[in-house]
């Protein structure tokens, strides 16, 4: 079935981009839960192969890191409404409590300050809304890998 691209919302496009994605997002099975200019939420299905502590069957912190970094990247592109050339500069995460085994993890991210070259984001990962398992702040650089776009000065 053909879809008229004009009928797609930005969120639809981001969801399709994630669904058709390669690499780590695909390997983790990330999906787009919701997406607006203000806030993007990704979902990570619980998987045994992502466990970091086999005794307690708790997800590895690195999985949460990747989920949050992805959510921040998608939140920034959704905020800008373009496939911007972005790169993470800095990511700080507090791991508040272990993820409960056998339950999906959601991560929501939002841009709270945007300058011409830097975006500041907040994110949190949770299994139950309002009870975060991790809180994060991140800074992203815009135009990171395309020096030819950085010629507009002054």
């Amino acid at each position, binding site marked *: 079935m053909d879809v008229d691209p004009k009928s797609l919302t930005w969120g639809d496009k981001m969801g399709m981009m994630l669904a058709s994605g390669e690499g780590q997002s695909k390997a983790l099975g990330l999906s787009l839960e919701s997406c607006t200019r203000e806030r993007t939420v990704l979902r990570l299905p619980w998987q045994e192969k*992502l466990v*970091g502590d086999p005794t307690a069957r708790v997800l590895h*912190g*690195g*999985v949460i890191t*990747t989920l949050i*970094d992805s959510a921040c990247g998608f939140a920034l592109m959704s905020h800008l409404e373009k496939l911007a050339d972005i790169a993470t500069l*800095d990511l700080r995460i507090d791991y508040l409590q272990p993820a409960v085994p056998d339950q999906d993890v959601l991560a929501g991210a939002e841009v709270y300050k945007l300058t011409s070259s830097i975006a500041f984001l907040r994110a949190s990962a949770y299994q139950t809304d309002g009870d975060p398992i991790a809180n994060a702040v991140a800074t992203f650089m815009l135009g990171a*890998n395309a020096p030819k776009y950085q010629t507009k000065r002054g």
Partner: protein
Amino acid sequence: MTATLVDAVRAARETGDYQTVLESIPYMKFLGLVVEADEKGPICRMPGSDHIIGNPVLPAIHGGVVGALLESTAIMHIMWSRESLHVPKIINLTVEYLRSARVVDTYAQAVITKQGRRIANMRVEAWQADREKPVAAAHAHFLLPREDA
């Protein structure tokens, strides 16, 4: 499951081979990590592969995966230095992304900046072809497991 990790650590104490410890931790195995140690501690190597890519255009390794390598290396360092039977719990992590990480072998090694009875403060660096040009660095705090061995 429990016996596997504990058995692997007990065996590693004898042999000095921590790869079996690493492979009893599912996510580290999922990333394809390989651990070797020098006198300063474990060096974890993450082979470049399609499934760790974050930016397919460059291409570059996913920033979160680089963070995961740094965290995993810190965990292996604590288990190596304390001969711990349990995985230390991460409290917080700050990752600084210094260079784009190309999809090739990436290495990481940790140092314990300060170790108390309950908390370890760690510094970890990741590099690719040139150790003098790290692609990322991290500071992290871990809650040390209470040993019951």
